[in-house]
């Protein structure tokens, strides 16, 4: 087992405990007098109209989509960057071609107007 990761494992557990503590303390200290109006959905004092579902733009999805593609690209490029010293110029050019293909994707999205927030 990798010792470096044990620390992370314990850290995850402790990092969850630390913010939990004030919430638990607040549970004991804070008053609790719920009533119907207080528990209602907050909307600047108005009563809520309609349900939570409002129409969302497809644009949100499109940004997430471009983000996903670039995320994968970065995952591919990190090993490339780490192994940089071992690579001949030829291999670096291959890496650059890899990036350029995706730059093409970005420019396609740009030309098609997919980046506009309309």
């Amino acid at each position, binding site marked *: 087992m990798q010792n470096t990761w044990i620390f992370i494992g314990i850290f995850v557990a402790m990092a969850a405990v630390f913010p939990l503590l004030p919430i638990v303390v607040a549970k004991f200290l804070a008053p609790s007098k719920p009533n119907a109006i207080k528990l209602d959905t907050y909307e600047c004092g108005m009563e809520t109209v309609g349900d939570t579902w409002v129409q969302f733009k497809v644009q949100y*999805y499109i940004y997430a*989509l471009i983000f996903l593609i670039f995320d994968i690209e970065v995952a591919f490029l990190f090993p490339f960057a780490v192994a940089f010293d071992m690579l001949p110029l030829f291999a670096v050019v291959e890496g650059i071609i890899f990036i350029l293909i995706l730059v093409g994707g970005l420019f396609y999205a740009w030309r098609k107007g997919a980046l506009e927030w309309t």
Partner: protein
Amino acid sequence: MIPLSWYLYLAAGLFALGLFGAVARKNAVAILMSVELMLNAVNINIVAFWRYLAPAEIGGQIFAIMVFAVAAAEVAVGLALFISIYNSRKTIAADEINLMKW
């Protein structure tokens, strides 16, 4: 020490769950999620085989990274299709999308 079998059994269980979801779920997005479960089961297997049977060959990890790329492409296109279908038909229930059925 963990024997290889544990990973393989776990992956088999996860794959079966994913298969069940992909066949039985009604909502198309849920089906895609189930497909992700199956892909993850496969990835567990790939990495476990790499670690236990061929740790000197880096190809095992490369293969797993390729699975990530394929999964991402699949999700991107699949969800775009569902959104498009929803916009024209107002439903993404899998058994109501029967455009290509004969």
